């Protein structure tokens, strides 16, 4: 059976499982599934942007904006759970569009640095406006609006499944080829009539929206928010580690990566948590090992394993061998 069809079946089973678990009443498992879903959503969002050659170091900016928009809508305007998620989504899309317009020509390392500056800028603004955002002391969500943990888990699972579907649709649309061309060489893409700005706007709006949705749903689960947490660089790095671990530029990559990263994170924390500093040390070592020995992630590993056992599935994937920018 071909690798991709196998993964597609696995994907459907996984989607079904993720949607079912919140109903099973196992709080521990449901919590881990929730965190995996939010990680998968932001990993998919980062992976989509990377697919168009835009490496972002500012995904915690989108996450934080989504979280703050949802929290402030709920607290100040009394907006309920689902509509506040929608506001978070829209705020992320607007920030994505804004970022695309502002960083019109930037590429590669310079685009990455601009996004890092954006995220850190948002953190400073959140700290310095205490009456709006609660400042550094943080902001608690009104508990009266709280919809119940199980409902939050279900919405998160649906969000993850939708994000996977969106990324699958994008890869099937004509956008996919424009993004691959832009990733390979933006000038060349321009010459063949792809207007990069239009595609950058769409991909950043979509990617921003997804990342902000993840932030918004997370703040509802946690109930507390402060600037250093909302715009924490750890979120940006987890958003990158998952696609790299799973297999960058592929559909299954971010999802496989989110599962692997969560398994690794929880594993090291639960077994080695008692000795201070060890859990994050193991995480760092695994990250280094993975970048060195699994450059194309688990998907690449699977592909090589399948290619060696069966006749080559199709020609060597030019898009996987990314030319030096």
């Amino acid at each position, binding site marked *: 059976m071909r690798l991709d069809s196998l993964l597609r079946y696995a994907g459907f089973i996984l989607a079904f499982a993720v949607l079912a678990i919140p109903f099973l009443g196992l709080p521990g498992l449901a919590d881990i599934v929730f965190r995996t879903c939010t990680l998968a959503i932001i990993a998919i969002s980062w992976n989509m942007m990377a697919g168009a050659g835009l490496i972002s170091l500012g995904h915690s900016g989108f996450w934080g904006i989504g979280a703050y928009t949802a929290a402030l809508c709920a607290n100040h305007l009394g907006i309920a759970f689902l509509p506040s998620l929608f506001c978070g989504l829209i705020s992320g899309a607007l920030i994505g569009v804004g970022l695309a317009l502002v960083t019109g020509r930037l590429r590669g*390392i310079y685009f990455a*640095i601009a996004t890092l500056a954006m995220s850190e800028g948002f953190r400073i603004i959140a700290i310095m406006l205490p009456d709006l955002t609660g400042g550094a002391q943080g902001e608690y969500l009104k508990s009266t609006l709280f919809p119940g943990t199980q409902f939050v888990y279900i919405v998160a699972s649906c969000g993850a499944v939708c994000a996977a579907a969106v990324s699958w649709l994008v890869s099937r649309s004509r956008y996919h080829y424009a993004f691959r061309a832009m990733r390979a060489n933006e000038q060349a893409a321009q010459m063949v009539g792809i207007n990069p700005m239009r595609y950058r706007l769409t991909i950043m709006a979509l990617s921003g929206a997804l990342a902000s949705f993840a932030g918004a749903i997370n703040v509802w689960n946690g109930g507390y928010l402060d600037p250093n947490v909302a715009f924490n660089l750890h979120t940006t790095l987890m958003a990158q580690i998952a696609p790299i671990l799973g297999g960058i530029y592929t559909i299954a990559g971010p999802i496989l990566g989110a599962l692997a990263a969560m398994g690794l994170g929880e594993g090291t924390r639960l077994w080695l948590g008692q000795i201070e500093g060890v859990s994050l040390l193991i995480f*760092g070592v695994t990250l280094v090992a993975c970048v060195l020995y699994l450059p194309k992630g688990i998907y690449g590993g699977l592909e090589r394993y399948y290619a060696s056992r069966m006749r080559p599935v199709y020609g060597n994937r030019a898009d996987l061998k990314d030319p030096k920018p």
Partner: protein
Amino acid sequence: MNLLLQFLVDSILLGGLYTLMAIGFSLSFGVTRIINFAHGEFIMLGAYGAFWLFKIWGVDPLIAMPAIIVLGFATGWLVFNSLIKRVLAAPNINQILLTFGIGLVIQHIAVILWSGNSRSTTPEYALQALTLGEVFIPYGRLIGCAVAVALVALLIAWLKITEGGRAVRAVAQDEDAATLMGINVKAIYALSFAISSALGVATGVVVSFIITVTPFMGFPMLVKAVAIVIVGGLGSIFGMALGAFILAFTETAFAYYVPEGSGWSEGVAFVLIMVILIIRPHGLRGQAEA
């Protein structure tokens, strides 16, 4: 009350400190185009090196600096050849993640070995200041500035005069042409990475008596170094120093003259980055210049 004089003194001293933070980073970034996310951790290692020598044997940080520089050079060379060399051809994101992973590992080895407590070295000069009427100049920061000037001068001289320095500048500008000259580009990458690490630990030694030493002090300094290199332009040491002083003056101006400005000052650095990146995508002074 005229704050201007003290403002100028503080800005210049802070500019020297920021130059130190960015000098090592700008060399390795200018030559290899890799953002070394672990550079902050090398500064932290230098600071802990100075701290332990000071605490156990009472060695003054400045006297311990040469030995720590040699150690930093060797560690940098080792880290490059064993890890970073293998991702030179990989896409940017793999390089970013690899160096961040290395940073994470060094950080938490420090936590395990030396605990998360705040440390600092307190040699004589770190707690005294030269007072000229209203204005006072802390010796600690003055020495920091002097070391920064010395390191910048040494580096520029090395780049201009020596064979290796010329080769590094050639690789920074055109790798293929440099290969045609008979320059082994990977060896030059390793050399510039090792020198960058040596400068990093030297910065750590100086910083150990100016700001607080903790395992997590590295990352904020790296973010500052990135901002400085962007403002000052890529790979040119003089441009980097200019970027450092621009940032220092802006931040100190905010802290002195804007109410609650010190809170906003860090945001200023990021606004500067966005503005400059949009006007001149390769930084203020443009391409590589010695």
